């Protein structure tokens, strides 16, 4: 017999009520965990995706820079184009070590999937030093480099001549297959820039230019120069670090709202727990008097009911974390369908610190909610408590 066992015994008196109370705490903790995990997952996912671009600046046609960034990251058809001649002005900007032109488009294939084609030249490889290519980068006309998932989906091999998905009477030779990058690129089909411009009937046009600087600290100078050059009026110069901060602050403003909802859920759970334990104290008044007669001090009674509260909250918290983990896939799919810039990496994943924060929240709820009932129980006069009709003892 120990204190833990004694406080657990209280559960057996009203298991359903205790279970419902713990479930309330669990839902609040699940909301907290999901929110914290989403915030971390989104931030890291965005950071990884922007890092995978390997560039400091994205040069795109005039229009919404966030749409353009999303298209460049995830692959889609572009609504407008840049003249290829602008590439020279970008290359001439101070501090630019690499300016990799790209032509991207997406073709519908069947009803739901898109095939993303990206035309690039060899400078693109300087932005992707970690790429592992089985075979070689496209060098001759109609050569293709397949993303790892694209190659798996169509079961194509290096050296195979294949029909180009979404196009009629067009074929290409698979010159290489890319190792997994764990990004959207795994689904892309790369080809020579000139081939892509010709194939999709946009000669001497680009969709975007990826720019890498020798010194990332010189970003502002390069951006100022690019915006001030002759072509600057027709281009959007998107510093990716700024883009990251802007998107993150948008998400943070949503997080504040969701955080308020989660905080309200925690407060409601705390009220439920407090009410349950207050009822337990009222029902077990005689038991409290009995324990006082048997030598329990006020501190013992306080501890007993406080521990009971903590147990309800911690069990609810653990259950809530398990629920959040199991439901994370469903929630992620729901969120992904509604977020404009959802990274391909997992948005909600198991984060130990978020789980610890969820449990700490549950413990905080228990501490606060349990204090008043435990204090009331401890203050009961043993004589009056023994005369009470409350309880089975």
């Amino acid at each position, binding site marked *: *017999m*120990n*204190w833990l*066992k*004694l406080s657990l*015994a*209280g559960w*057996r*008196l009203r298991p359903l009520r205790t279970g419902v109370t713990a479930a309330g705490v669990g839902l609040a903790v699940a909301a907290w965990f999901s929110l914290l995990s989403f915030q971390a997952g989104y931030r890291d996912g965005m950071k990884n995706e922007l890092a995978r671009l390997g560039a400091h600046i994205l040069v795109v046609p005039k229009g919404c820079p966030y749409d353009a960034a999303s298209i460049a990251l995830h692959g889609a058809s572009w609504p407008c184009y840049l003249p290829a001649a602008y590439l020279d002005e970008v290359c001439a900007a101070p501090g630019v070590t690499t300016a990799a032109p790209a032509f991207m488009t997406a073709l519908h294939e069947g009803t739901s999937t898109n095939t993303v084609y990206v035309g690039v030249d060899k400078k693109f490889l300087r932005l992707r030093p970690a790429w592992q290519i089985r075979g070689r980068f496209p060098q001759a006309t109609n050569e293709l480099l397949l993303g790892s998932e694209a190659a798996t989906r169509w079961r194509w091999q290096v050296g195979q001549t294949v029909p180009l998905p979404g196009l009629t009477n067009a074929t290409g030779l698979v010159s290489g297959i890319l190792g997994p990058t764990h990004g959207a690129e795994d689904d892309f089909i790369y080809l020579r820039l000139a081939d892509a411009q010709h194939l999709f009937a946009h000669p001497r046009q680009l969709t975007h230019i990826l720019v890498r600087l020798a010194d990332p600290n010189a970003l502002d100078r390069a951006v100022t120069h690019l915006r001030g050059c002759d072509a600057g009026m027709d281009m959007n110069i998107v510093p990716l670090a700024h883009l990251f901060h802007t998107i993150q602050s948008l998400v943070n403003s949503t997080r504040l709202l969701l955080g308020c909802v989660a905080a309200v859920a925690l407060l409601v759970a705390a009220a439920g727990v407090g009410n349950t334990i207050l009822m337990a104290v009222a029902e077990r008044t005689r*038991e409290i008097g*009995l*324990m*006082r*007669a*048997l*030598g*329990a*001090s*006020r501190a*013992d009674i306080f501890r007993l009911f406080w521990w009971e509260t903590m147990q309800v909250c911690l069990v609810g918290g653990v259950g809530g974390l398990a629920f959040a983990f199991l439901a994370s896939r469903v929630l992620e799919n729901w969120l992904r369908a509604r977020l404009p810039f959802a990274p391909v990496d997992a948005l909600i994943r198991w984060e130990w610190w978020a789980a610890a924060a969820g449990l700490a929240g549950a413990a905080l709820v228990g501490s606060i909610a349990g204090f008043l009932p435990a204090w009331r129980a401890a203050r009961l*006069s*043993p*004589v009056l408590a*023994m005369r009470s009709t409350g309880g*089975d*003892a």
Partner: protein
Amino acid sequence: MTTSPQENTPVIAAQALTKIYQRGREQVRALDAVSFTVARGEFTAITGPSGAGKSTLLNLLGCMDAPTSGTLRLDDREVHSLDERARTELRRSTVGFVFQHFGLLPTLTVAENVVLPALFARRSSARRAEMLLEKVGLLHRRTHRPHELSGGEMQRVAIARALINEPRLLLADEPTGNLDSATGDSIISLFQQLNAEGLTVLVVTHNAVMTAAARRQLALRDGRLTDGK
């Protein structure tokens, strides 16, 4: 054989013990200048009609409440001037309680009920609990819960529980009040046995057999001791 000074002092020494309750504007004198002593090893029965002050006296003797005036010494320690915390400490180390309605916690097993006061006293108690359950003939029931026991068995468990912290004084409030006469007699025998082993026993009772079994009787009426021998 010599006896130590502590062994010569009474377990209970009450002098002009008075307890007044405030009920609205009215003052109720539940105990009125009650004086008596109980020597170590005595078996005392307190009798009296309802409202005579028996339970109030038991609460004071069990350090559950403080007197309005008068002095009370328990096991040679002053009780009347102690604060709540010190009274709790004295109660847990000196007094064992047995109640008319047994007072077993329904969610605990027999063995867990018995060790409960030891938990409050921070004592290790498993071996002593087994010994006491064997003494009251219920070792085989140690894993049962109270609802699986008869009334007599429940009271035996309550007696084992009252003895777990090796009290100097066993206080019992109508311990046979909820039992049939045959079962009540077995509980009375158990009290006699414990008293014969040297335990001081004070019982509030209406049971004539219990009263007769006690070596000393005190009668309370309207908060005053009216008869005693």
